[in-house]
């Protein structure tokens, strides 16, 4: 469509102005506040406090550790599922049904999903009772309020993102390449490792980035499934803003989380790029 320049400026300008006013400026406010002191002065003391206190390093470490485990598990479970629906489910109705099963949890609040796990993982929950009736364990396992419990609950939240991202790449792979490899006598596993998997790497990379960033900033799941016994960064940020009401320190924690996440992602992308070239 031909749009005259003045209308274009208006049609694009209003939404851009909206985002500047209600998105960029608020984020800027957080960044600026992180350098504020209670007496109204300016200083980097908040950053110094985080950098020198082992407690905050511990929270940051736990945040990234959980996010890494979640990313790894979700990749190992999500990739085979994406592969199966893309290549092995031919029946369109079954396919639709499977997609509905994958997407519905995504459309449900993380509270509801954490609540489901709260019930399943408890000492008298179904998971423990099943394991005990199978006589695999003789007393209930403590899963809730541990790192493992948080990882299970978060992997559950993140799985659809990985499946959908990988599936969207797998759909676009030219299957004739795979057929050629098979025709030339490649073992299916070899064909997968040499043809399909390398071609699906963009999906694996994009999916793990999405899952990792979402896991790092997740708040609801860790706060419900940790029972307050484990602390990740998002919970600290919440405490500062909602309980302690120390906005500047909360802002500093938020900036620290944001910057360290971006640094890790940049490092990850750099390694991948090196690898692709080498």
């Amino acid at each position, binding site marked *: *469509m*031909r*749009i005259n320049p003045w209308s*274009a400026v208006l*049609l*694009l300008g*209003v*939404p*851009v102005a909206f*985002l500047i006013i*209600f*998105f960029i400026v*608020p*984020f800027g*406010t*957080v960044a600026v506040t992180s350098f504020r002191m209670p007496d109204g002065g300016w200083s980097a003391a908040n950053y110094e406090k985080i950098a020198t206190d082992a407690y905050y390093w511990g929270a940051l470490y736990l945040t990234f550790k959980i996010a890494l485990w979640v990313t790894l598990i979700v990749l190992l*479970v999500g990739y*085979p*599922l994406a*592969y*199966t*629906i893309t290549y092995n489910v031919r029946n369109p109705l079954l*396919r*639709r049904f499977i*997609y509905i*099963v994958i997407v*519905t*949890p995504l*459309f*449900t*609040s*993380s*509270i*509801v*999903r954490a*609540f*489901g*796990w*709260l*019930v*399943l993982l408890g000492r008298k929950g*179904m998971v423990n009772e099943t394991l005990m009736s199978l006589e695999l364990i003789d007393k209930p396992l403590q899963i809730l309020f541990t790192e493992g419990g948080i990882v299970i609950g978060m992997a*559950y939240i993140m*799985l*659809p993102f990985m*499946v*959908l991202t990988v599936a*969207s790449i797998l759909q676009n792979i030219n299957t004739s390449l795979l057929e050629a490899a098979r025709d030339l006598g490649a073992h*299916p*596993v070899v064909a997968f490792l040499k043809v399909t998997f390398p071609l699906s790497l963009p999906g694996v990379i994009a999916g793990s980035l999405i899952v990792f960033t979402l896991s790092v*900033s997740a*708040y*609801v799941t860790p706060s*419900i499934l940790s029972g307050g016994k484990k602390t990740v960064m998002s919970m600290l940020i*919440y405490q500062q*803003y909602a309980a302690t009401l120390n*906005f500047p320190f909360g802002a500093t924690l938020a900036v620290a*989380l*944001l910057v360290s*996440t971006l640094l890790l992602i940049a490092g990850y992308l750099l390694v991948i790029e090196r690898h692709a070239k080498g």
Partner: protein
Amino acid sequence: MRLSDSLGRASLFGISILALIFLAFPLLVVIGISFTTTEYLRFPPVGMTWKWYARFFHDASFVESLITSAKLALSATAGALVLGVPAGLVLARKRFPGRQAISALFLSPLVLPTIVLGVAILQYASTMGFARTFWALFVGHVVLVMPYVMRTTLASLSGFDVAQEEAAQDLGATPLKTFFLVTLPQIKPGVIAGALFAFIISWIDVEVAVFNSTPELITIPVKMFNYIQFNVDPIIAAVSAITIYVAIVAVLLIDVTVGVEKATTRRE
């Protein structure tokens, strides 16, 4: 077929089926508990009762937060459509310097931590004097859901034959008329899918709403979040189940309009 082939295939299917059960089971558990006759959470449920749903609907504060959530999700979706669709149109049809940067700006709320958006809106609204009002929730949610509208709008516009719009304009239609008579009818499924995504993202959000709520102005997920810290009883299962039913309806609507598979795996 060789033995290793069928073994590989069987384990692939095995993992996939387990993954699907893993995805569906917690939601089925929540729905199951919401019908238990016991006073405590129990799965499998004992007996069958609607009393937890009745208790929910008799609790004015729950119903009120359900209405707040619905109002917020509807208005944030409308706001994101009014701002996002025209912007998407210009981005898809005009070539100008900085176009890529502006597209990135529209999609960036997607990758930044939602909890930081929540505190940013709280701080900003405090300075501007509208902290913890419906407007603070509204602007936060418009920012939050805009990328979803933008993504599907841009995707539908890029697969669109521009010649039709040009023909309409050559025949004397105004740009506005061209948009409503030629463009919109064709990108409608994509826009509807984007709107449904936007609605649901606002509907389930905790991270933005939790910082901008008051005991009177509270969305249903935040209300549930606060409730769950102190009480765990089947009422919360009933509320959860209601939100799951809304999710199922939204997914089915997307499936009818554009197809769930297409809406969730299409690349721009």
